[in-house]
C-alpha cells in the first residue's frame, strides 16, 4: 500500500450537472481527487466519464455545481488556465498532431514552459535557442522513460496505435503536470501493451508523484491500479470508494451485469 504519499484534496467537484439541450449528461456528480492518488472513473458506455474529464480540463462548462482546484472555488474551468495550472490530458480517440514527428509532438507539451518572446523566437537567437536546447533534454528524458527512442523522428501518423497512445502520454507528461487526466489509455491494446501502459502509469505516479485521473474499461487494470474509484451510470453517480468496496457494491454489479426483473 502507498497510503503514505497520498496528500490533501487537490481537486473537488461538487454537484456537477451538465446537459446538452434536453440531454442530461451529468447529474449531480460530486467527488474529490487527492494529491498523489490514482483516481479512476468507471462506468458503462455513455455513462458520462469523458464528459467528466472535459469538465475538469475546461472543454465543457457545467450548468450547475462548482469545481475547487487548489483551494480556489470556481463555477467552471478555462481550458488555457487549466493547462497553465498543471492539468494535462490524453484523449479517448488519440488526438496527436499527425504530420509532426514524435519529438515535435512531445515538444508541444512544453509549450507553456517556454518563456522567450515572439521576437526572440522569430530570429531564433539568444534566449530562444538556449531554451529550446534545455527543453530538448527534458523531452529526451520522457522519450527514454516511455521507451520510444526508435520512433523519435517518425511522423506519428505512421505509428501503430499502441505507440500513438504512448506518444500522447508523452506529450501530456512533457508539461510536468500535477494532475494527469487519462481517457482510456489502454483501449484497443493487447495484453502486453496493456501491461506496459499500466507500468508507465504506476511509474509516473510513483516517481513524479503525479496525481492521475483515469478512465478505463478493463476492470482488472482499474482494480489493480486505482486508489479510489468513482462509478457513473447514465450521468448518475453510483458509488465512490476504494476498489474492494466498489467491486462489492450491489448497484455497481447491477449496472455492469444488468438486473433481472
Amino acid at each position, binding site marked *: 500500500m502507498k497510503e503514505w504519499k497520498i496528500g490533501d484534496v487537490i481537486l473537488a467537484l461538487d454537484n456537477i450537472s451538465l446537459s446538452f439541450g434536453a440531454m442530461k449528461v451529468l447529474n449531480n456528480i460530486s467527488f474529490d481527487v487527492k494529491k498523489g492518488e490514482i483516481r479512476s472513473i468507471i462506468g458503462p458506455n455513455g455513462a458520462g466519464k469523458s464528459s467528466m474529464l472535459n469538465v475538469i480540463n475546461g472543454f465543457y462548462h457545467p450548468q450547475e455545481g462548482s469545481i475547487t482546484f487548489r483551494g480556489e472555488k470556481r463555477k467552471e474551468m478555462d*481550458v488555457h488556465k487549466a493547462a497553465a495550472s498543471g492539468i494535462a490530458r490524453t484523449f479517448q480517440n488519440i488526438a496527436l498532431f499527425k504530420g509532426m514527428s514524435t519529438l515535435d509532438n512531445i515538444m*508541444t507539451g512544453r509549450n507553456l514552459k517556454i518563456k522567450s518572446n515572439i521576437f526572440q523566437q522569430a530570429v531564433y537567437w539568444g534566449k530562444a535557442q538556449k531554451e529550446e536546447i534545455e527543453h530538448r533534454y527534458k523531452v529526451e528524458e520522457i522519450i527514454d522513460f516511455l521507451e520510444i527512442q526508435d520512433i523519435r523522428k517518425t511522423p506519428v501518423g505512421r505509428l501503430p496505435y499502441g505507440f500513438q497512445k504512448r506518444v500522447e502520454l508523452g506529450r501530456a507528461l512533457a508539461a510536468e503536470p500535477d494532475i494527469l487526466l487519462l481517457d482510456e489509455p489502454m483501449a484497443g491494446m493487447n495484453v502486453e501493451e496493456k501491461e506496459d501502459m499500466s507500468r508507465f502509469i504506476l511509474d509516473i505516479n510513483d516517481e513524479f508523484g503525479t496525481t492521475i485521473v483515469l478512465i478505463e474499461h478493463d476492470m482488472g487494470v482499474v482494480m489493480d491500479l486505482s486508489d479510489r474509484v468513482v462509478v457513473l451510470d447514465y450521468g448518475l453517480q453510483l458509488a465512490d470508494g476504494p476498489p474492494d468496496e466498489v467491486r462489492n457494491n450491489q448497484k455497481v454489479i447491477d449496472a455492469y451485469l444488468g438486473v433481472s426483473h
Partner: protein
Amino acid sequence: MRIERDIIYIILAFIALMVVVPWTAGQLSDQIFFNWPFFFEVAIGGLLSGVMYSLVALGFVLIFKASGVFNFSQGAIVLFAALTLVGLHELGLPMWLAMIATMGVMYLVAVAIEKLVLGKLVNQEHIILFMATIGIAYFLDGFGQILWGSDVKLLDLGISQAPGFYFDGLILINDFDLFAAAVAGVLVISLAIFFQYTRIGRALRAVADDHQAALSVGIPLNHIWIIVWTVAGLVGLVAGIMWGSKMGVQFSLALIALKALPVLILGGFTSVPGAIIGGLIIGAGEKLAEVFIAPMIGGGIEEWFAYMLALAFLVFRPQGLFGEKIIERV
C-alpha cells in the same frame, strides 16, 4: 527538410526537358534562335518572375500550415495591403511611414478576422473554414475599394525598372526583379526557420493538426490565428508592393492568386521552401516554354503551361514536391 530521391529526379527531369529540348530543336532547325547566353537570359528572367509567384504562394502556405485551411482570401489580402499602402502614401505619409502603418492595419485585419469569423468556428470542418475565407475575400475586395477607390494607382519604390547588363553585357536582367528575388529569399529563410525551430512555429503546426489537442496543451488558439493572419498579411503586403509596382495597384492584383495555385500544387501546400521552388520551376518553365518550345507548336504556351504542369503533378504526386505525404491509417 529531407529531400527525397524522387524530388531530385523530378527537378533533373525538368531541367533536362527545358535545356535538351530547346537545344536539340536549335540544332535541328535554324528557324529557332538558340544560343546559350540568350537561353540563360530567358531562364534567369523566368526564375525571377517565378519568385514573384512564390511571394503570393507563401501567404497561402502560411495559413494552410497553421490552420489546415486553404485561404481563398490571400489574393484579396494582397490587394487590400497594396491599396492601403498606396492610399496612405497619397494622403501624404512618407513611404516608410505608410509601410509601418499598413503593417499595423494588417494586424488589425488579422484581429478582426479572428474575432469576427474564425474565433466562432473553432473545431469546425476545414471546408467550413474555407467557405468563411471566401466571404473574407469578397469583403476585403470591396472594403479596400470603398476606402481607397478603384482607380489604378501607381506605386513607385524608386528602384529602377530598367534592365541591367551582367556577365560582360551578355545577359540582360531587370534590376527590379533581382531586388524582388532578394526580398523573397530573406522572407523565405526567416519563415522556414520560424516554422521549424521555434515554439510558435510548432504551435502553428499543432493547431493545423488538431484544435482540441492544441488547446489541451495550452496553445492559445486565438493568439495563434492572429499571428498567422498577421504574418500572411505582411507577406501579402510584400507581394502587393512587388506586383503593384510592376503592374500598378488595381483590382487585378487579387487575381494573381490564381497564378499561385499551380505553384502550390507543385511545391506542396505545407512547405515554405516548396512555395519557392514551385514558383521558380513555374516561372522558368513558363518563359522557356514560351520562347523555345512554343514556336514548334504554334505559340501561346505561357498562359496554360503552369496549369498543365500542375495537372501532371496532381496525377503523379498529389502532395507536391515538398508537401507532407498524406498518411491515413485505416
